[in-house]
């Protein structure tokens, strides 16, 4: 326990977390500090490209692993399954109607790539290795949860507006394509390719992540300010409990698959994190009546900061304890 606390404290005073906190506080204090939309998108493209490429180069270096397929399947199953867990938990803890509960649940089956990036950076910082193909697992976990959420809605007799165009949008959304594409490029070009662009995607990575998290803090803070009162105590409790519950599923999957300690951590993080890009966009199209203030505030304003500050050190501590890593 004290070890977890020590880890958490260590984690809390890293430039990454403090940059997020700076953004959060600036937005809550109504400073006009802001990062232009285009720049924030540019930073996220950099992060996706770098994390994907490094994952692929990792696979190229360590050879393909029998657990790759298992991990991908586990990711698909977790993504499809967790919305049901989340839905049940929401129905217990909150008074959200089926539509909004299903919409929220869909977010928690899917993943937050920035949480994944932050966890990777913590692992790198502590010298804990992980399977490079976890970025591919992250990519496959984006979409299945949406299907589960829509199924939950359809089951209750409400209609969801889902057409072929939407599926294309979800499956070929920019983040997935870039992540998988960069992963493949890293895999194909391997160590040599990595050497060529290392000083672009490795050295400045953490600094770029700081600026990106500054922006995430600003966006989360603005969201929290605008939607004050939207979430009751039950919903907030859900936003903290659900990642812990999700991480246990991820832990189970990681241990069953026999992943490395770092791989187990990342599987926990994927299961614990909630989407705030791909899923909200899909929900606006398919379930326009669901209130975005609820799902965005929960995912971005509660669960994201929780994972970033407290969740990740907990997941690391548990995974290391159970894998003896």
């Amino acid at each position, binding site marked *: 326990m004290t070890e977890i606390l020590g880890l958490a404290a260590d984690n809390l005073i890293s430039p990454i977390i403090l940059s997020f906190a700076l953004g959060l506080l600036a937005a809550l204090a109504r400073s006009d500090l802001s990062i232009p939309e285009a720049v924030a998108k540019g930073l996220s493209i950099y992060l996706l490209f770098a994390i994907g490429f490094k994952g692929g180069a990792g696979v190229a270096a360590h050879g393909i692993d029998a657990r790759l397929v298992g991990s991908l399947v586990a990711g698909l199953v977790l993504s499809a399954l967790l919305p049901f867990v989340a839905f049940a938990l929401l129905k217990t803890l909150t008074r959200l109607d089926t539509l909004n509960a299903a919409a929220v649940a869909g977010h928690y089956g899917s993943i937050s790539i920035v949480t994944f990036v932050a966890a990777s950076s913590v692992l790198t910082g502590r010298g804990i290795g992980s399977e490079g193909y976890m970025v591919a697992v992250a990519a496959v976990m984006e979409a299945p949860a949406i299907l589960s959420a829509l199924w939950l809605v359809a089951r209750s007799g409400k209609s969801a507006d889902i057409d072929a165009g939407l599926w294309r949008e979800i499956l070929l959304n920019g983040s997935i394509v870039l992540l998988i594409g960069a992963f493949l490029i890293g895999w194909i070009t391997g160590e040599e390719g990595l050497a060529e662009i290392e000083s672009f995607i490795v050295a400045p990575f953490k600094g770029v992540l700081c600026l990106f998290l500054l922006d995430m803090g600003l966006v989360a803070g603005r969201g929290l300010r605008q939607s004050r009162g939207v979430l009751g105590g039950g919903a907030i409790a859900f936003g903290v409990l659900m990642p812990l519950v999700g991480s246990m599923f991820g832990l189970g999957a990681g241990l069953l698959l026999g992943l490395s300690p770092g791989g187990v951590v990342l599987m926990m993080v994927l299961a614990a994190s909630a989407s705030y890009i791909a899923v909200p*966009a899909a929900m606006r199209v398919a379930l326009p009546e669901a209130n975005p203030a609820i799902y965005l505030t929960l995912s*971005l304003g509660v669960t994201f900061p929780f994972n970033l500050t407290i969740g990740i050190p907990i997941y690391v501590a548990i995974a290391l304890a159970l894998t003896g890593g």
Partner: protein
Amino acid sequence: MQMHEVKRVEIMIEAPMERRLSNALTENGVTGFTILPVLGGSGRSGRWSREGQVSRAGGMVSFICLVRPDRVEKLLDAVFSVLERHIGVVSVSDCEVVRAERF
């Protein structure tokens, strides 16, 4: 100059619906429109601004279509087939154009 009467239809719609509205317009024979970016706004669902958006889930765009008066009805049907369940605002006003053959 010889002027011709047309209708100017202005549609504020959520950004994720942009492609769907474009398609609906084109399929209904409205092939002339212009899309403007929107910085922020306020409505029954509260205030928002582009800065506060982490993703394309947020944000709006504004469509401007100039159409011949007799085609407005069909255009509005197309718009509402897409817009019905979504937030957004549609307004129609009169205006005049010079080169009428293109509307």
